[in-house]
């Protein structure tokens, strides 16, 4: 058997597969670009004068606000749990990730229920002070830009926490020790040494949080906060200008590319940073006692309380009044729908991520790299717009196939893909590929190329190298990538609404339907289900990332001792 020529064929296959996948993922984006050339009517003059300046400003303020709030919360809590010792630290270490399980639209519903004029907080204030109407006192309006920043910050900070914590953990402890020996105070250490070093990792987290924030449609619609995403939706559906909506969506993609660039930039720096630090040992923690320990505990507990405990308790309370719904066959079917769709999409997403990352590893050519990078911008396209971008090429494909099958074989295939769940799975893959690809790519980055060379020298072809060397090493990364995509798919709302088949409900659409008729109680049980299902992978992820770090350390220590 001749190995040498087959090598190049297989390598070519990888490249071909990667380009094909990238094209498929890019197709909806291209469809949107194509739609942007549709006649837009005369909406633009009017929009430029009245709508766009406001929504641009709102979007920038929202991103600034969410960036600051997630950045500060994420960095401070990450620093406390990695660099300080205080009672409860071990629990906080993973519990800080828990708000990630709560979708922004659910946390928005929950806080309106709590903080609105009719909610318990304001009712309490009125009963204490004897106020009669809203004109008698001032209370911050939750359905506002400030409210949106508050609720998004509450559930998006874990992105920053996750990456920054990892950043602190891989910082060479010796760097910090040297600074300490040279007389740096804990605060000096934080601001002058640790913070600049961890900045790339934080930038990655913030850019992820901002992409989620840019994409949100549920919470901003509910709050009446008119962001660019909101405007895309509004121009398309209320003003019936698909072309205008597509143009604005394309303009938004520029913002997203900036965020992606920021994330890339962060990763590049990070790789450089960890490159030299092969002699890791756990950083020495500051022991906190008394009021300082209490303060640290409170600072860490606050975000968990705001982003998870309050909404979850509220949902649990409301859901408990509707427990009989739990055993209705409709509800079980809804759970199954959500689960199976998300599982299929997560699996596919990971397979695609591996193919893309591996073909780049084999052949880091310019066009391929560009295609792969572009393939991850789906993350930034608002779900509604993406749904349209999928609807159109997929419907064309279905109709094309149907026409030919009919002509050649007399088979009527109808809307083969669109009418099934395939359109949904496709949408999820396009939308969340970036999440999983980022993880997988990072995982590949940590495997030294020497392993590949060794494997190839020992006669393995590229596919064998992948299955026998890389995949076993990458297993934890693949799992966490799959879990993250799974949770994101479970939470996805706008594309699901638009692309789902007949008589088909998921947990997210059930929440949406109940909320759209102000039946918060009815929305509570499915909301709680989304949160609980989302919780499982989040906790697993949090625990395993802590454990794997610990095992790595103990292995190193063992190795050092030997």
């Amino acid at each position: 058997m001749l190995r040498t020529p087959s090598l190049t064929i297989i390598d070519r296959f990888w490249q071909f597969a990667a380009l094909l996948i990238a094209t498929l993922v890019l197709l909806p984006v291209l469809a949107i670009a194509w739609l942007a050339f549709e006649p837009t009517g005369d909406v633009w003059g009017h929009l430029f004068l009245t709508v766009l300046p406001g929504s641009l400003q709102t979007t920038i303020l929202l991103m600034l606000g969410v960036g600051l709030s997630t950045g500060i919360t994420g960095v401070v809590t990450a620093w406390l749990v990695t660099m300080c010792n205080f009672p409860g630290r071990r629990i906080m270490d993973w519990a800080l990730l828990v708000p990630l399980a709560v979708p922004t639209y659910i946390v928005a519903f929950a806080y309106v229920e709590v903080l609105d004029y009719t909610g318990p907080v304001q009712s309490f204030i009125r009963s204490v002070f004897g106020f009669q109407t809203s004109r008698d006192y001032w209370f911050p309006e939750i359905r506002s830009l400030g409210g949106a920043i508050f609720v998004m910050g509450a559930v998006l900070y874990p992105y920053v926490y996750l990456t920054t914590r990892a950043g602190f953990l891989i910082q060479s402890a010796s760097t910090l020790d040297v600074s300490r020996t040279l007389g740096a105070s804990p605060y000096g250490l934080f601001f002058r040494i640790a913070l600049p070093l961890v900045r790339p990792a934080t930038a990655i987290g913030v850019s992820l949080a901002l992409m989620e924030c840019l994409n949100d449609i549920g919470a901003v619609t509910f709050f009446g906060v008119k962001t660019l995403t909101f405007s895309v939706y509004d121009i398309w559906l209320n003003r019936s200008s698909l072309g205008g909506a597509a143009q604005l969506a394309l303009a938004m993609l520029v913002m997203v590319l900036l965020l992606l660039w920021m994330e890339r930039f962060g990763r590049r720096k990070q790789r450089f940073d960890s490159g030299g630090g092969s002699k890791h040992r756990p950083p020495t923690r500051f022991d906190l006692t008394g009021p300082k320990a209490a303060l640290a505990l409170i600072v860490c507990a606050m975000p968990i309380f705001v982003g998870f405990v309050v909404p979850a308790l509220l949902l649990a309370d409301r859901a408990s009044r509707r427990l009989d719904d739990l055993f209705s066959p409709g509800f079980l079917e809804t759970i199954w729908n959500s689960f199976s769709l998300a599982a299929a999409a997560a699996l596919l997403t990971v397979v695609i991520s591996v193919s893309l990352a591996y073909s780049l590893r084999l052949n880091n050519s310019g066009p391929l790299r560009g295609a792969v990078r572009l393939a991850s911008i789906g993350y930034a396209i608002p779900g509604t717009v993406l749904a349209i971008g999928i609807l159109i090429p997929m419907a064309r494909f279905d109709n094309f196939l149907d026409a030919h099958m009919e002509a050649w074989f007399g088979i009527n295939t109808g809307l083969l893909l669109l009418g099934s769940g395939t359109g949904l799975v496709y949408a999820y893959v396009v939308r969340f590929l970036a999440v999983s690809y980022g993880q997988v790519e990072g995982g590949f980055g940590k495997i030294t190329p020497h392993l590949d060379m060794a494997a190839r020298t020992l006669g393995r072809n590229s596919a064998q190298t992948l299955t026998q060397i890389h995949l076993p090493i990458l297993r934890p990364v693949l799992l966490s990538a799959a879990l993250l995509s799974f949770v994101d798919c479970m939470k996805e709302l706008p594309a699901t609404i638009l692309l789902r088949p007949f008589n088909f409900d998921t947990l997210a659409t059930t929440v949406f339907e109940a909320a759209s008729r102000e039946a918060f109680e009815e929305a509570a049980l499915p909301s709680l289900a989304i949160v609980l299902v989302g919780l499982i992978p989040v906790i697993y992820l949090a625990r395993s990332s802590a454990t794997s770090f610990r095992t790595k350390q103990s292995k190193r220590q063992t190795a050092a001792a030997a």
Partner: protein
Amino acid sequence: MQSKFRALSGALIMAAAAATSAPALADGEVNIYSYRQPFLIQPLIDAFAAETGVKANVIFASKGLGERIAAEGENSPADVLLTVDIGRLDGAKQLGITQPVSSDIVNENIPAQYRDPEGHWIGLTNRARIIYASRDRVDQDSITYEELADPKWKGRICTRSGQHVYTIGLIASMVAHHGEEKTEEWLAGVRDNLARKPAGNDRAQVKAINAGECDISIGNTYYMGKMETNDKEPEQKEWAASVRILFPNAEDRGSHVNLAGVVLAKNAPNKDNAVKLIEFLTSPEAQRIYAETNFEYPVTPGVEVSERVSSWGELKPDALPLADIAKNRKTASELVDKVGFDNGPAS
């Protein structure tokens, strides 16, 4: 590489497994795309199934279904699209996703003013856009839309978004009656009287009146009935009990009404059943369900409104032709942006 393929095909099988109910093309079914919420149309679907044995499949979304039908093209499984507001009925016709219904039954049941002259859309019910007024804090028994801009309402009005089809319809009727300039002035006046930024649906406004956040709100009639009879959310009965309905402009031109209706999809695969469904929806039996269960105003002559609806008072509908409302919708939407209606009262 083989295992690679295995993984991929495994994922695809999973994907296929996740793909459940494929669109129904068999006899005995009809596919409904609905902008109307499932709980509103379920009683009608049940009655239709009982009478004809035809099973209805439903997709509900609040936005974008017309676009979906357009994209699906020839193979679209959609048979009918149920929607509210003349703007959307007319919009469906403009999108080219409809075909004319020629049915003597429909033409007999529905007065010509509530149908497209070519039969591209058929009106099914009317809903009046009325004022909900606090029982405790509002004394007057009549009101006009014009009056909402009067400073005496400062900080007392709640409403949903100005860009919602219902609000646009009302503003478009104001444009038709008073012209663009006057309407802009009026809209700015209403904005200044708002108690809060427009948000939530019609029920949320009544909830706010009950809590004391505002004193009057703009809403559709049938929500009153839906709240009064809501056994699942008993607190909504309390909201309803705190308000009464005032029919605006009862003494002059009458109250603004918006039409809910149905279109037959251009490529309806089950056309016979779809036409049967449309005929059924215009029948006195279905119109009675609309009246009794959904508290809407039937359009078929001879079908009475429900007792509950008549207890709210007499509706005198504004006789403005639907075409005039449809024509002014764009202007209305631009005025909403221009005065910054959805930003709420200037503080």
